[in-house]
């Protein structure tokens, strides 16, 4: 069960902890300082709500601008001037050269791979 100090709800435990200070709090709640503080808080929350919608609409504007650029500029650019196929060809050429070079090295009888394989086989089947 909560109790009210001014316009603020305070839990029972907190209220019990404040025992002996009731008069001080009552004076403070009735004071101009407290009313001023509450008024400021109300104004601040109103301003926050006011700018929430504006911020949301600005975010939506920038999101839709980015989406529009993506759909109207970036995708057509990729479709008309795609580099992908050319890059794949270059990669394949380079792969072919490397494969030939590596396989030539690996199939030599005195290559480290052949030696290691021979050692492995000998140790298991000797």
């Amino acid at each position, binding site marked *: 069960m909560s109790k009210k100090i001014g316009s603020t709800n305070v839990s029972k435990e907190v209220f019990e902890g404040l025992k002996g200070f009731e008069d001080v709090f009552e004076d403070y709640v009735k004071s101009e300082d407290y009313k001023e503080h509450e008024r400021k808080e109300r104004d601040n929350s109103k301003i926050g*709500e006011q700018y929430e919608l504006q911020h949301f609409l*600005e975010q*939506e504007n920038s999101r839709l601008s980015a989406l529009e650029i993506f759909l109207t500029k970036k*995708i057509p650019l990729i479709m008309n001037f795609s580099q992908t196929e050319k890059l*794949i060809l270059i990669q*394949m050429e380079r792969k072919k050269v490397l494969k030939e070079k590596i396989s030539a090295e690996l199939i030599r009888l005195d290559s480290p791979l052949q030696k290691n394989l021979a050692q492995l086989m000998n140790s298991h089947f000797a």
Partner: protein
Amino acid sequence: MKIPIFEELLLKGSSLQDIQLVVDDSRIGKVPCYINLTHYAPNDLEAAVMNLEQVILEAALHPRFPYPLYIITTKPVRTLFPTVRSVKELPEHYFKKVKRPNNKELQLLNKLSLKVDKIKNLQLYKIIQELRDSSDTQRRLYSETKELHFLEVLNSALFEKPKSKTKERS
């Protein structure tokens, strides 16, 4: 234009005519929408989703752009629409308090409506299909590059002498 916050579309049935009526009266594409089909039986659900897809295609609307149309269902269903299991799983971004917009917000809404119309007028299905097609070659390039990287690492391990040893020798 209305503030782009979630609107729920209420279907009266899963028939084509019922769905046509709802889609005609709705603001699909102009604001984010959702249809709750959690209480539908599996057969009705499939029929409703199929009819909805047909109506949306005929109306030249897109299920995702500019604003998405979500289907809420707990049963698995194959569809063009984004699906979620409950209202709570919908993006919170589009849940906002309804309030009267001020002048500045109205200006932003007008700008927004122009952009929405511009995106709606694009050939969205064609563009998205082109994007999908280009993604296949991009994936091929990725796998080729990955294989080439492996071969280059192997090549450097086999043929390039480690730097520390060369330093010691020199």
